[in-house]
């Protein structure tokens, strides 16, 4: 008997070594998978940040700008209309000519004027309108540089390359180096990137109109998909009879969650724009389309969280005589809500990153003005990324990466809040 016990022990011991080995291998494989994933992520962020961080800075050129009364306000009445109509680009050109008096000839002058962004005049105008006593003074002003100058200063353009190989010619390079030598070229924080809409001039372009467009769109999506999704989930989970029809509905909902988003875009185009006549390029239509896309996700998450409420809680409520409605709204919903919200936030995060359906409904337009309502033409963050990625100017490369970083930051905040919500309200029984 004892020899038998000995045999069993030995066999078990042999088995144990094998079991441990398997477990270790499995753990190593898992760890390896995680590491590979992390490596890809690290590469992704390395290239994004490497390409994108320079977009948060913008090259400026310091010039003495003479805001002479004769050129800006010949009437001397400081009438905003007159002040607004003045030729500020001309003022800046004068400042450039004053800085480089030796430059002559139309071509050379054009090259000189190209150092400063065409948008600098607008900014100067706004500055004067906000502050009319500047008229008559000569101010030292940091003017936003042209995108080619910006690229050169940021080192994205090779100064030693052949003149024909770069977009800055030799004389422009000379002037820039002259400016650099006396500290009149500097990189400042690029607030325009966060506060303005799209522009043909990279140095004047920003993501704000896309952010606002995305915001309006998500607002519409949230306002529709959360109540609709939760109501659907409650009905299907708690009230609907379990029969072939509800099975069919369930299968369809699960299927819809996997339908390519561009299909929803086509549906939105046919239904909302062509049939209902809603405006093109408007966040409201984008929101509706994204609602179609998000709804299945919300419904599935809400049903799962309703299902995960322990049946003992329902029994307890029914047992003291609560009606079905009371049971659901007093006891089940409060427990399921965090899960529903988590699912909704994740659905919204997906909607925020979606671009394909928006292309179908015309949200790919070039939008300079910041939309003021969900009915105004707008674009969305991922579409802005798409537009910039498609632009030929070198300066849009870094802006594309920067816009992706901003998009990722929003996604991170949303997903983190979903996790926080889950952690915060997680209950154990």
């Amino acid at each position, binding site marked *: 008997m004892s020899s038998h016990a000995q045999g069993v022990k030995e066999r078990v011991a042999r088995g144990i070594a094998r079991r441990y080995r398997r477990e270790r291998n499995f753990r190593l494989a898992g760890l390896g998978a995680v590491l590979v994933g992390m490596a890809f992520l690290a590469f992704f962020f390395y290239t994004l940040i490497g390409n994108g961080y320079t977009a948060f800075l913008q090259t400026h050129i310091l010039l003495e700008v003479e805001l002479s009364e004769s050129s800006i306000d010949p009437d001397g009445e400081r009438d905003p209309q007159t002040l607004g109509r003045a030729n500020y680009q001309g003022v800046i050109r004068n400042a450039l000519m004053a800085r480089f008096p030796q430059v002559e000839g139309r071509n050379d002058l054009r090259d000189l004027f190209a150092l400063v962004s065409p948008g600098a005049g607008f900014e100067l105008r706004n500055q004067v309108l906000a502050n009319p006593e500047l008229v008559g003074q000569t101010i030292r002003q940091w003017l936003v540089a042209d995108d080619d100058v910006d690229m050169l200063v940021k080192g994205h353009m090779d100064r030693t390359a052949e003149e024909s190989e770069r977009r800055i010619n030799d004389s422009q390079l000379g002037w820039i180096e002259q400016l650099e030598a006396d500290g009149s070229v500097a990189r400042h924080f690029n607030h325009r990137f966060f506060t303005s809409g799209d522009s043909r001039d990279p140095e004047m372009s920003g993501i704000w109109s896309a952010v606002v467009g995305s915001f309006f769109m998500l607002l519409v999506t949230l306002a529709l998909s959360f109540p609709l999704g939760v109501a659907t989930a409650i009905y299907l989970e708690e009230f609907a*009879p*379990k029969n072939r029809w509800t099975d069919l509905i369930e299968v369809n909902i699960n299927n819809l969650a996997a339908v390519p988003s561009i299909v929803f875009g086509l549906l939105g185009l046919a239904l909302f724009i062509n049939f209902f006549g809603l405006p093109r390029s408007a966040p409201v239509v984008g929101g509706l389309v994204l609602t179609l896309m998000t709804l299945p996700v919300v419904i599935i998450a809400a049903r799962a969280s309703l299902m995960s409420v*322990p049946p*003992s*809680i*329902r*029994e*307890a*409520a*029914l*047992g*003291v*005589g*609560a*009606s079905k409605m*009371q049971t659901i709204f*007093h*006891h089940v919903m*409060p*427990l399921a809500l965090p899960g529903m919200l988590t699912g909704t936030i994740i659905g919204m995060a997906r909607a925020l990153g979606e671009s394909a359906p928006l292309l179908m409904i015309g949200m790919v337009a070039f939008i300079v003005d910041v939309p003021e309502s969900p009915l105004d033409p707008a674009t969305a963050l991922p579409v802005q990324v798409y537009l910039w990625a498609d632009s030929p100017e070198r300066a849009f490369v870094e802006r594309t990466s920067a816009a992706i970083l901003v998009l990722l930051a929003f996604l991170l905040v949303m997903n983190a809040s979903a996790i926080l919500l889950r952690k915060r309200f997680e*209950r154990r*029984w």
Partner: protein
Amino acid sequence: MSQATKVEKDTVPQVGAGTVEETSVPAAPDIRVVGDTYRTVGDYTSANPVVRARNVDVFYGDNHAIQNVSLDIGKNQVISLIGPSGCGKSTFIRCLNRMNDTIDIARVHGEILLDGEDIHARRMDVVMLRARVGMVFQKPNPFPKSVYDNVAYGPRIHGLARNRQELDRIVRSSLERAGLWTEVKDRLDEPGTGLSGGQQQRLCIARTIAVGPEVILMDEPCSALDPIATAHIEDLIDELKKNFAIVIVTHSMQQAARVSQRTAYFHLGRLIEVGDTDQIFTNPQHELTEDYITGRFG
């Protein structure tokens, strides 16, 4: 038609254990011969019934979980339901407050009267019924709310209190009757789920009696508790029977013997034998009952 047959069956005299053996108990009490015509051994009626169940059948889909069970629940009495696992004890008591309605595949046939009213009648509201027939579950299941709100929930939804003072009184007296007041009176605002298992179960009992039911159904109320908490609940049951009719499902023969006046033995969906607890445990009439209580089986 069915009404007529019911009445006929009802009126078949089955009073006292002695009268039974000639009529229905087969010579060898084997479950095979306990067919549809099986008649429960012993007196399933009660002199002073609150609930009268007659010819109750329950099906879960095709599974015939309860077969032709008739049983009275007497006032101010504890009746314990015993029997091997899966014999239908829970299913039976869940018929009494229509909890089986919540299971899609469950179908209940037969007649169940509460104070003479048919609980399946159209006039009978299931919410009302569950206020009158309370239930305590096997696993303590307080709401994830405060102790106070747990007890106050029933009175609130039924509108039993006109104002806060009245509600406070109901909560207090329910907790007192559940023997929990002294332990929780300083922590009424703390979550009910933070109490110990035994306290949670007494909280659930307090929650049930706060609604002022006539019958309390308890499905293995002590199976998740230690002996001390169990003794506590048993004392409580003894106390509660002054005001309520109590049905308790238990797997502990000792518990059945300690707390109940009547005992019913279920086997494979049939009510085999019912009688006074003393008689069932000292002198069971049916062989299956005897096998079970002597531990030869189950």
